[in-house]
């Protein structure tokens, strides 16, 4: 009883004496600080969950740390894991430049992989470098094709792109399951439905150790996405198109056209994530092409305020977290801990961001 009275009193003091106001100047690094604070909050939440399960948080986290970035080998696997996350995150960020959401990255990743396999089984090239290049292009086109219907219906009729892109995920994953159980089923993989492996000649080689060239592609595309969003004419036009409708008209910018191409490019980035994953990691089409990369990429993109460089850094961290999350299974800790930490990081960051955007001011009650 007394506690609740104190709370009521505190509330009254806050409501009567203080008022909320928007800060005129928001700290430039607020997103970064919010992320750090959010990550700390998420680690605390993760520790609490571990304690409930009778596991030692410090042991678990140090094991995750050791097995995800403790050695060159594990660091390479973490960065390989981060590659599709970052690519899909970049795709989401590019589409968000026109203030649209792409929730369909998961489906686009699968479509990218399907695109690669489709070209691989129908065409053969003697030069393996150019073949890999063609396969990567086809994964880009696969991702772009996947978002085509949401893009066309958004631009022409204004259909809610959040729901259409999300539903395409289920359609494309269903299509993948159909393909690996039906037309593309590899008779040699008996229990696990999957398509046949691609030949060794189209494997993306490793730079050193386990680190794939996919990560290099990812670095280059991060730089490209940064340029596209912030320095290019198209990026400028996209920002206008995503801002105010009237401004776009006055500036002579075809907002719908920009939105359409932004969506196709963004979808292509996510498709490329699937292509790189197939050519460097899984080497065949199966339901294991993506383990929720498309959804984690949403967290990565949103937490950084859609900044490509930030996506690269946070994506790398989350890749390590996923690797750490999958190895702690061996000591009986659920892999979902990693998912929960990632999602809680964003919630924590959103809460902290509030204090950067608003301030409590004392009311002068004279």
């Amino acid at each position, binding site marked *: 009883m007394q506690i609740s009275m104190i709370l009521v009193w505190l509330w009254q003091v806050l409501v009567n004496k203080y*008022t*909320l*106001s*928007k800060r005129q100047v928001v700290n430039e690094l607020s997103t970064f600080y919010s992320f750090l604070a959010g990550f700390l909050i998420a680690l605390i939440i993760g520790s609490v*969950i571990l304690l409930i399960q009778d596991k030692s948080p410090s042991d678990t986290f140090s094991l995750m740390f050791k097995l995800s970035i403790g050695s060159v080998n594990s660091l390479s696997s973490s960065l390989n894991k981060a590659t599709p996350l970052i690519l899909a995150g970049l795709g989401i960020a590019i589409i968000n430049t026109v203030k649209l*959401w792409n*929730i369909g990255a998961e489906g686009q990743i699968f479509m990218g992989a399907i695109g690669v396999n489709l070209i691989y089984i129908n065409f053969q090239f003697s030069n393996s470098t150019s073949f890999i290049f063609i396969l990567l292009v086809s994964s880009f086109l696969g991702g772009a094709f996947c978002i085509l*219907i949401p893009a066309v*219906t958004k631009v022409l*009729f*204004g*259909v*809610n792109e*959040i*729901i*259409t892109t*999300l*539903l*395409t*995920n*289920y*359609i494309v994953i*269903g*299509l993948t*399951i*159909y393909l690996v*159980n*039906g037309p593309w089923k590899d008779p040699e993989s008996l229990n696990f439905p999957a398509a046949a492996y691609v030949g060794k000649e189209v494997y993306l080689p490793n730079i050193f150790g386990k680190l794939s060239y996919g990560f290099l592609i990812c670095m280059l595309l991060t730089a490209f996405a940064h340029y596209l969003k912030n320095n290019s004419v198209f990026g400028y036009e996209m920002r206008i198109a995503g801002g105010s409708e009237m401004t776009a008209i006055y500036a002579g910018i075809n907002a719908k056209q920009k939105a359409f191409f932004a969506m196709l490019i963004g979808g292509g980035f996510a498709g490329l994530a699937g292509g790189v994953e197939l050519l460097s990691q899984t080497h065949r089409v199966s339901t294991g092409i993506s383990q929720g990369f498309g*959804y*984690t990429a*949403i*967290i990565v993109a*949103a937490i950084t305020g859609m900044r490509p460089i930030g996506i690269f850094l946070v994506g790398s961290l989350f890749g390590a977290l996923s690797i750490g999350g999958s190895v702690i299974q061996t000591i009986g800790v*659920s892999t*979902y*801990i990693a*998912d*929960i930490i*990632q*999602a*809680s990081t*964003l*919630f924590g960051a*959103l*809460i902290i*961001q*509030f204090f950067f*955007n*608003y301030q409590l*001011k004392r009311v002068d009650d004279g």
Partner: protein
Amino acid sequence: MVDIQFLGLLNATLQAATLLFIASLGELITEKSGILNLGVEGMISVGAVAGFMTAVNTNNIFLAIVVGVLSSAIFASIHAIVTVTLKQDQTVSGLILTILGLAVSSLLGKNYVGRKLETKLESLFSIENPSNVLEVFLNQNIIFYLAIIFTITISYILKNTMFGTRFQAVGEDSKAADSMGLNVTKTQFIATCIGGAFAGLSGVYLTLSYVPYWTDNMTAGRGWIALALVIFGGWKPYRTAIGALLFGFLEALVPRLQTYGFELNPYIVKITPYIITILVLVLLTIYKGGKTGAPKNIGIPFFRENR
């Protein structure tokens, strides 16, 4: 004498529709107050697993329903705190609520995968083999009748009472509502939690009656279809109910097509509900020409400037 296959189809339609409809009714209430919550999928999942765990451990169905509903409402309050109290982006928060909800429910339900439910939610009047349409309707469980009661009362409250009008004013123009002396923050906060409670009820229906077991990701996109249904229904309870019946019918019909003599690939059959949802959404948006009937203030955080 009515065809037994038809009765089976009707029964399946009603069940699938109830599941979708309850969640979309909750989202409708939330959106009417001006808050967009994309976390329906996650909230259904949390309610489903919480209800299932309670039912397995206590064998008390009533308690399971209460726990499922409450846990989803509490889960939805995360969205309420972040978007209503702290005025952050509703799209981001809702999306992450889905991801978090699916992860949390998978974590909680890890030891419950494959467990059998001793007592499932029985129909109100136990009729062995329904032989006419009326008996099929009487053979539903309590949540089905609750859904009907909710539709009628919510529609009545929104249309005909002062409370309902004020409630909608918050979603249409929160600044005007605020200057009229309505408590915008409180209304939106409660509406978000009520939306969560409804999603929880839908989740409980899923694991205690519709498919009485628990597996990861068993919501299978139903939360998103529920979101589409709110748009389909133009933010009106009765039209949303019609939409739910239509989708429930399709969900019930497609697996049965084989018995009517159609040869279909089972993998393709599984993705048809999603294709149809997109198709319907597109046709509807074209038909309405952009005037969807959405609350004007949806997605915009309310912030009262300094006095």
